[in-house]
C-alpha cells in the first residue's frame, strides 16, 4: 500500500471506505448464517473478501452515476448507497424488500440510487451498463456508468462488443473486472487465456490491473478512469485481482463433492483480507485510532440488527402481487 501522501485520501475518507467495506462484510456474514439456518428462500453468492473493489469504485460515484452488478451483487448494492434494510428484506423475500420480494439476492436493484441491479446472467450487466453510459453521454451531465463483472464473465463475447462500441462512441463507461480467480469452480487459468486487462488494448481502451484487495489501489485506478469518463474521453477497464473467501454460492457444500481449492490458498488470501489490511494501514500511519474503528463496528452491528429486524418484521408479499409489474 502507498503512503498517505500519495493517496489523496484523508483519514476521514479512509474511515469512510473502511466503514463501507465493514458494512458489506457484516451484512453478508449475517446473510451467510441465515442461509445456513435455512432462512433464505433462494441461493446467495457472497462477496466476502472482495469488498475493496465495490467500495473503491463506488466511492467515486454519486446517485446520478450508474452501476450494473453481477450475481454476487450485495456488495455493489451497499457500496453504491443501497439501503441495508431494503437489501436484507429483499433477500428474505419480504414485501419490504427493495424489489418487494420479486427479485431476491440475484436481482437487488435501486434505480433511485443508480443501481441497475444484480444479474443472474453472467455478463448480462455489461450491456445494461453500456446503455446507461449512452444515456449518461446523451444527458451531458457528466455522469458515468460502471459495469462490474467477474473473470468468468470476461469470456463472454459481450465484453468485446462493449469495448468496441464504447470506445467508438467514447462512452463514459467503467469496465470493472473482479478477478477472484474462479469462474464458479474452475480456476481462472483453466478457462481464461491471457491477462484480462490486455483485452482492452486492441480497442485503445486504457486498462489497469490492480490489487483488488487494496481499497486504495482500486480507489486510485478508478479515480483516473472516472475523470477520463467524465471528461468525455471514453471507457476504461480495471482488472481487480481479488478472491472470494466464501464458496461460489452458499449452498455449494450440498452439491460439490470435490475440493476445488487448497486450504493454504484460502489462508493466504485471508491474510490479505482487504478490511484488515486497511486497518493495519491506518494503524501503521497513525491515521485513525482503533477506537474509531470500534465505533464503526458498533454502529454497523446496530445497522445489521436493524436491517434484520426490519426484514423479519416485514410480511411476505400478498400473492396477487405476483401478477403485477409485468407491464407499466
Amino acid at each position, binding site marked *: 500500500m502507498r503512503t498517505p501522501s500519495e493517496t489523496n485520501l484523508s483519514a476521514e475518507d479512509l474511515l469512510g471506505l473502511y466503514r463501507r467495506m465493514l458494512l458489506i462484510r457484516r451484512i453478508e456474514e449475517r446473510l451467510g448464517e441465515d442461509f445456513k439456518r435455512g432462512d433464505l428462500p433462494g441461493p446467495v453468492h457472497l462477496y466476502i473478501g472482495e469488498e475493496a473493489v465495490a467500495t473503491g469504485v463506488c466511492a467515486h460515484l454519486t446517485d446520478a452515476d450508474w452501476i450494473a452488478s453481477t450475481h454476487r451483487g450485495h456488495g455493489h448494492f451497499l457500496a453504491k448507497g443501497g439501503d441495508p434494510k431494503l437489501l436484507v428484506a429483499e433477500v428474505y423475500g419480504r414485501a419490504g424488500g427493495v424489489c418487494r420480494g420479486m427479485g431476491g439476492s440475484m436481482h437487488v436493484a435501486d434505480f433511485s440510487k443508480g443501481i441497475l441491479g444484480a444479474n443472474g446472467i453472467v455478463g448480462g450487466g455489461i450491456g445494461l451498463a453500456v446503455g446507461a453510459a449512452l*444515456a449518461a453521454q446523451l444527458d451531458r451531465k457528466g455522469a458515468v456508468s460502471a459495469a462490474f463483472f467477474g473473470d468468468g464473465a470476461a469470456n463472454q463475447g459481450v465484453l468485446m462488443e462493449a469495448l468496441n462500441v464504447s470506445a467508438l462512441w467514447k462512452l463514459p463507461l467503467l469496465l470493472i473486472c473482479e478477478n477472484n480467480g474462479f469462474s464458479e469452480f474452475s480456476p481462472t487459468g483453466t478457462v481464461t487465456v491471457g491477462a484480462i486487462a490486455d483485452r482492452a488494448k486492441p480497442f485503445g481502451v486504457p486498462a489497469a490491473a490492480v490489487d483488488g484487495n487494496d481499497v486504495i489501489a482500486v480507489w486510485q485506478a478508478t479515480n483516473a478512469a472516472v475523470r477520463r469518463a467524465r471528461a468525455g474521453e471514453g471507457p476504461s477497464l480495471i482488472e481487480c485481482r481479488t478472491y472470494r473467501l466464501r464458496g461460489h454460492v452458499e449452498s455449494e457444500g450440498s452439491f460439490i463433492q470435490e475440493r476445488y481449492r487448497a486450504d493454504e490458498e484460502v489462508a493466504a488470501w485471508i491474510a490479505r483480507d482487504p478490511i484488515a489490511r486497511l486497518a493495519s494501514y491506518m494503524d501503521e500511519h497513525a491515521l485513525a485510532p482503533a477506537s474509531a474503528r470500534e465505533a464503526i463496528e458498533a454502529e454497523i452491528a446496530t445497522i445489521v440488527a436493524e436491517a434484520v429486524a426490519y426484514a423479519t418484521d416485514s410480511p411476505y408479499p400478498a400473492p396477487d402481487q405476483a401478477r403485477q409489474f409485468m407491464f407499466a
Partner: protein
Amino acid sequence: MARRRMIQAINEALAEEMARDPRVILFGEDVEISVMGDTRGLRATFGPDRVRNTPICETVMTGMAVGAAAAGWRPICHMMYGNFLYTGMDAIANQAAKLRYMTGGQIKVPVVYMGVFGAGRSSAAQHSDAMHPMFMNLGGIKVVLPASPADAKGLLKSAIRDDNPVIFLQAAGRGGEAGDVPEEEYTIPLGVAEVKRPGKDVTLVAIGAMLRPAMRAADALAGEGIEAEVIDPRTLMPLDEATIVASVQRTGRLVVVDEARDACSAASHIAAVVTEAAWGALKAAPKRVTVPDVAIPYSPPLEKSLLPDPERIAAAVRATLGR
C-alpha cells in the same frame, strides 16, 4: 388520406415521434443509410447523437437498449432482420422482458425492437423466420405486427410511447405495399384488434402479412355465399381476445391464419383461447392455417408451397362450414 408505402409510413412514425419527444433515440446497423428505408433521413434531421449506426453486435445492442431505457431514454433498437433478434435474444429474454418485474415495478423499460420478418422473398431459412410466437411466450414484451401502412404508422407511434418493451415486426413482403394513411396525427392503441371486413358466417383471424391472402380468400368465399369476418389482431401481446371472441360468438366458426410454424404458433394460442371462451357458440372446430414445422426453403415453388395462400385459407373456411 395520403398514399404511402409501408416503409414510408414507418419512417413517418419514427420521424414524428422523434420530433415529439427528444428522449427517443434510435440505433442499429446501418440505420443512417437505411437498409430497409424506414430510417432514411432521420440522421440528418435528428443528428448523430440520437441516430446512430452501430457495429454488428446484436448481443450488446439489445442489452444497451435496456440500460439506456432504465437510465431514462426511449431507445428504438433497429435489428434489421427479425432473425437477428435470436442473436440478441439474451438481453431481450433475460433483461428486457423481466427487469421491471423482477425489480418490483421500480422502473419502466420503454424500448422498441424493430425488425423485418417472415417469408416470401426467397431469403431462405434464416432470414425468413416468423418468430412472433417466441416473443408472445416471453411475457413482459408486447408484440406488434402491422398489416397495412396506416396500422404500421399508428401502432409504431403507440409502441414508441409505450412504457414497456415492444417488438415491432414488419412483414418482409409488405414493405413496398402502399395504402392510405391519415394525414393528421393519429395513433392506434396496442392491444386492439380491427375488423377488416365484416361477415357473419365465419371469423377469419389473419396475422400480419396473412391479411392480404385472407382478404382475397374472403372475396372468393363471398362469391360462394360465405361471408367471412376478417379480423387483424395487430397486437399479439396483449391480445384483443374480446374482439375475436365476440366475433366467434356470432359466427360460431374460427379460422386463424398465421405465418408462424404451427407448433406453439399464435394460431394455436388464439384457437385455444377462443375455444375456451366461445365454447357454447362454436359450431365447428377452429382451424389453423400455418406453416408446417420446418424452416423456409429458398426455391420459390418450395417457399410458396409452405405459405398460407387464399386457396388454403378458403379451403379451411369451407371445412369449418362442412363444405
